[in-house]
């Protein structure tokens, strides 16, 4: 997907060769749902569906970049919750909510830096470091709140706006998500700084031999992922008007799954923001559709898992066929 490709159809140019399969799958599901439920293709439903994944998608962006660099982060759920808790506590202590949010995001960046330290300087594996961070951050959430959600109904409307406000007909949260995606997709594809992320993840030795400070790259991607968790946590807080210490349990699997469906590899060097977001859209679309069709809960998981497997298999065949069908 990295090769500079010039003679391509408009469609594959729009979506990058790698993502066409996912787009197809999503379009099929979309059409099927439009026929299956009269409520599906309504503005409200679209809005609800978009809101359901737009904030998490910010975390997906961070995770994808981290995966490309060869890392992984299991702590995303607890760090997101911690951002809510820190900002919430500060706000309750009288700090201006914007400043409180900045401090919370900085704290998340700090956690990312500590994880990055253990990974790059000490030399431990991302998996184990972020697992420990996941447990510790959850503990901090509990400690800070006594396990009870913080009610932040008093947050000023100007602040809540980022969670529940709209710009024209589009919710602010979705705008933030779109901007994040577009910006990072561009950065990752086009800037030299982010290309180093690919190099590091693809072959750390080769990158290091080319004078890339791979440890710094890994450190920064680790930190970036945590920072974006912080941002997501703040938007959640504005949206929910509360800070929940138990928020985001199990989020990591969902987020990693989205990135992997979108073409990221757990061994690094591969992946794209657009693909990962399409992965998140797919997962979210399936969940929302099952809920809308009022499928029995006892069947939902089975159907969800099967669609996931079928989609990935189909996509895999498309990618393989494209690879076999020559690359001009």
């Amino acid at each position: 997907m990295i090769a500079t490709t010039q003679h391509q159809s408009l469609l594959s140019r729009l979506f990058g060769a790698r993502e066409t399969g996912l787009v197809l799958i999503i379009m099929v599901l979309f059409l099927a749902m439009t026929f299956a439920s009269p409520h599906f293709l309504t503005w409200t439903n679209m809005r609800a569906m978009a809101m359901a994944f737009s904030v998490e998608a910010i975390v997906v962006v961070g995770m994808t970049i981290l995966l490309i660099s060869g890392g992984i982060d299991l702590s995303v759920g607890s760090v997101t919750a911690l951002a809510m808790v820190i900002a919430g506590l500060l706000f309750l202590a009288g700090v201006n909510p914007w400043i409180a949010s900045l401090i919370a995001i900085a704290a998340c960046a700090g956690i990312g830096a500590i994880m990055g330290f253990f990974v790059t300087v000490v030399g431990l594996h991302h998996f184990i470091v972020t697992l420990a961070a996941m447990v510790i951050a959850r503990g901090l959430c509990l400690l800070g709140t006594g396990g009870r959600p913080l009610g932040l109904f008093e947050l000023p409307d100007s602040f809540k706006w980022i969670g529940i406000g709209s710009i024209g007909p589009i919710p602010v949260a979705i705008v933030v998500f779109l901007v994040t995606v577009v910006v990072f997709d561009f950065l990752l594809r086009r800037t030299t700084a982010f290309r180093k992320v690919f190099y590091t993840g693809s072959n750390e030795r080769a990158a290091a031999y080319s004078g890339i400070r791979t440890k710094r790259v890994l450190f920064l991607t680790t930190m970036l992922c945590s920072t974006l968790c912080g941002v997501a946590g703040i938007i959640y807080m504005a949206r929910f008007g509360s800070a929940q210490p138990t928020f985001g349990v199990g989020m990591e699997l969902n987020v990693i799954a989205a990135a992997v469906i979108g073409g990221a590899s757990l061994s690094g060097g591969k992946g794209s923001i657009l693909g990962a977001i399409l992965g998140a859209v797919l997962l979210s679309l399936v969940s929302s559709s099952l809920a809308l069709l009022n499928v029995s809960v006892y069947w939902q998981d089975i159907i969800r898992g099967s669609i996931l497997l079928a989609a990935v298999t189909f996509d895999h065949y498309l990618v393989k066929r494209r690879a076999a069908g020559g690359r001009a």
Partner: protein
Amino acid sequence: AQDTLRCEPGETYVMNVMVMGHPYWVPVFQGFKQAAEAFGCEAVFSGTPDYDITKQIASFEQDLVTSPKGILLHPMQADPFIDPINRAVDAGISVTTFAADSPKSKRTAYITSDNLAEAKFAAEEIVKTVGDSAEYAVLENPGQSNHDLRVTALIAYMEKNYPNMKLVGRQATNQDPNAAFTAVSAMLQANPNLAALWIPESGSAEGAVAAAKAASKKPMIIHADISPTTLEEIKAGNIHMALNPNQGIQGFVGFMNTFLGAHPDAIDPFNDYKTAGYNPMQIPFVDNGFAVITKENAESFVLEKYMEGRN
């Protein structure tokens, strides 16, 4: 004012919950359905299979898309639901909360079993059984509000009324029998005189009994909610008793509140609802009560038997 309380054909009521697969909802929805049938209404069970607030909100908003008359909602968290509930109410949908509340929203009623009352009952039962100067311990599940309330209320009640009762252990086991096994094993080791255990749910209670048996000790175990295993352990005398919210009534009355909220024309109360413009059907809090399950009546609480022939 409406003269009969009946649904129009196709009038639908939704019960929306989180972690839909949890057995707790089963008898609640049975009550909900029974009431719906009595009023000639359609009943739909919805929500999210996950423990995920974002997904529950999405499912709630999708319920709104299908324009039901009312929703009986178990909001996973209070504040995040304020805005969605208010939007539903503004759109003319009656919303009642149950088992967990969103007090700052415009929901018309909240129906629950009183966790404080459960805690108080459990405390008194412990004191009655092991005396008022003994050692006791609790398991908990931090972050889940009704479980939290059951635990903190019991501790507070003990401190206030029975200062000689000593809290020697407090462990988070998060409904996991294996974690409860570990925690209770350790507690029994550390506190040979541990006399009683209060557990806010049944999953941890299963692990606790297994640990007590493994340690050949017999502390008094009292817990909230039930599972088939804890029922059997109650019958076998290994668990002292269980306190179970009256789920069927919760669902039935929950439906009635939702229904009434959707048919306010039937009510014309002596207050300012007409001038202030709010729904006359307003109840801050309805207590559906709880059942005390012991050896004697355990047989009536076998969910399998109850569910035979229903779905």
